[in-house]
């Protein structure tokens, strides 16, 4: 017979009350776990998509004039009239401190050409780098060789281009080797060719209009990389593409804050449930506590019994709450069609759930335990 035996037997005797406390705490812990899991998985999902997006750093010539957008993203001040970036300068990007994080460097030269009788925008790109930078590209046909072009969906429609067709661009005969499936971006309006070919056609040897850089940036310091590249290319403007995800991340951050606040409220309610139920339990057990005290239990022994009861229920609530929270998110992601967002089973979250449940349970039981321990044994026995 130990104090623990008494605590366990009392919990088993008062099943309804024990279950009530367990449910109160479990709901609180499950809510917090679910919120953390959901936010984590959503953030991870966004990061994954961001990485899949390809380029996350853009290098453009420094200018104060003419705002332009490309690919739906603000490029800051891009102008064709300013001093372009030199292709030879790009080698410096590979020498930065975080060079290992660079997956691809995609130089682009832009200009207008005449195809047949119509004017069109021509983009010279490195198709190997483009494979990494624009993984969403779907080409009907083949990626072009040095004497070929790839037409964006809208450009092909307007210019009436077909795969295999010969086109003359500024007097040079090239073959349409592929047509890009619609992307919903500015790529749809461009005609792409090899960088060297475009530089020749546009009479821009060694010139680059824009450089797209794909950095493996799930955890890398993208701002540091921007600074390092800027150091290498002092005449260019280097910026991280954050606009696309910034909004979502901000929304997520707001949701995160709101959810945490809500979770804390739920946990506080759980704590109140524990407090009220334990208070009731202590009052009901006045006579029993009187017996304990009469047979020589110290105040600390009585407190230990109450804390053990709270601790046991809280530990169980921590475990059940964690499993319920994780299970709830898994179910939620399936129901709301986010099956691609994976949950990361973080052992620290499980430990945290357990610790939090026990902390809330024990803190909420402190006053009832103090009350029980301070009970006058003589008065307690008179209640019998």
């Amino acid at each position: 017979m130990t104090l623990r035996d008494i605590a366990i037997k009392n919990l088993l005797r008062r099943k309804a009350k024990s279950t009530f406390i367990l449910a109160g705490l479990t709901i609180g812990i499950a809510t917090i776990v679910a919120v953390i899991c959901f936010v984590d998985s959503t953030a991870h999902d966004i990061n994954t998509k961001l990485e899949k997006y390809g380029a996350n750093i853009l290098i453009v010539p420094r200018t104060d004039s003419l705002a332009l957008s490309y690919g739906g993203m603000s490029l800051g001040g891009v102008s064709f009239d300013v001093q372009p970036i030199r292709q030879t300068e790009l080698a410096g990007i590979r020498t930065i401190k975080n060079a290992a994080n660079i997956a691809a460097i995609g130089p682009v030269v832009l200009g207008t050409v005449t195809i047949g009788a119509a004017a069109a925008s021509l983009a010279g790109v490195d198709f190997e780098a483009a494979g990494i930078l624009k993984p969403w590209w779907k080409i009907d046909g083949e990626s072009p060789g040095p004497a070929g072009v790839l037409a964006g969906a809208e450009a092909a429609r307007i210019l009436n281009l077909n795969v295999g067709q010969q086109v003359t661009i500024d007097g040079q005969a090239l073959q349409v080797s592929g047509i890009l499936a619609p992307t919903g971006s500015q790529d749809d309006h461009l005609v792409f060719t090899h960088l060297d070919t475009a530089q020749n056609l546009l009479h821009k040897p060694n010139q680059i209009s824009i450089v797209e850089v794909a950095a493996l940036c799930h955890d890398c310091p993208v701002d540091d990389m921007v600074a390092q590249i800027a150091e290498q290319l002092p005449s260019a403007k280097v910026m991280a593409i954050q606009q696309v995800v910034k909004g979502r991340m901000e929304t997520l951050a707001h949701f995160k804050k709101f959810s945490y606040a809500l979770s804390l409220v739920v946990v506080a309610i759980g704590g109140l449930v524990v407090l009220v139920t334990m208070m009731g339990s202590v009052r009901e057990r006045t006579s029993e506590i009187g017996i304990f005290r009469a047979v020589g239990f110290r105040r600390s022994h009585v407190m230990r019994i109450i804390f053990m009861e709270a601790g046991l229920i809280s530990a169980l609530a921590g475990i059940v709450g964690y499993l319920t929270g994780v299970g709830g998110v898994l179910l939620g992601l399936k129901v709301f069609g986010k099956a691609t967002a994976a949950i990361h089973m973080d052992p620290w979250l499980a430990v945290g759930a357990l610790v939090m449940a026990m902390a809330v349970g024990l803190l909420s039981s402190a006053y009832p335990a103090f009350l029980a321990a301070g009970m006058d044994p003589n008065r307690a026995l008179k209640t019998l």
Partner: protein
Amino acid sequence: MSFIICDTISKTYGQGDACVKAIDEITFTVRSGEFVAVMGESGSGKSTLLSIMGAMNTPTSGRYLVDDIDVYALDGEKQADFRREYLGFIFQSFHLVPYLSVVENVMLPLTTTGHSRRVKEFMAHEALAWVGMADKAKRLPNQISGGEMERTAIARAIVNNPPVLLADEPTGNLDTRTSKTIMTLLARLNQQGTTIMMVTHSTACAGYAQRVLKVRDGLLIDTPNPAEAAACV
């Protein structure tokens, strides 16, 4: 040599006009191994006296010593230790913990001792055997009779071999036959050296005591012998 000394003990409840003097400067001593009955009408102060002797009710004034220990000079936790080591309680309404089995109830005073589980169980079974309850050790209190509950309460009171047994109307809820059994058990305990202080209304029960203290309106009015007690009450 006095084992228990109650030295001008008073106990008042409330303040001002609502002040009630439950015990008024009671002084007496009890020798080690003595069996003393405390008699008196309801509200006379005998239960207050017993609770003071049980280290559970601090007197307003006076000193209470057991084995030269000034009980109320001890702090709360030491008083709890004193109760565990020196006192065994037998209550009128048994006061068994309902969700603990008979043997677990008997083990209660041993819970906070350093004995191993096996030793505790052995001591509890010994105590239960002594009161004739060995065969009902696993039962819950609601599965045994009133007499058996009282015997369980006695087993609990003696399980740690306390030198003093305090009994508050131990036969108050029992029939005559069962009361006799219980009193026989108490008498046997006393013969084995346990000092017993017993509050009772029953002259028959008081007859088992070597001495009777009579309390009226908080005062110790005389100390008749058991034979005289029958005439007093």
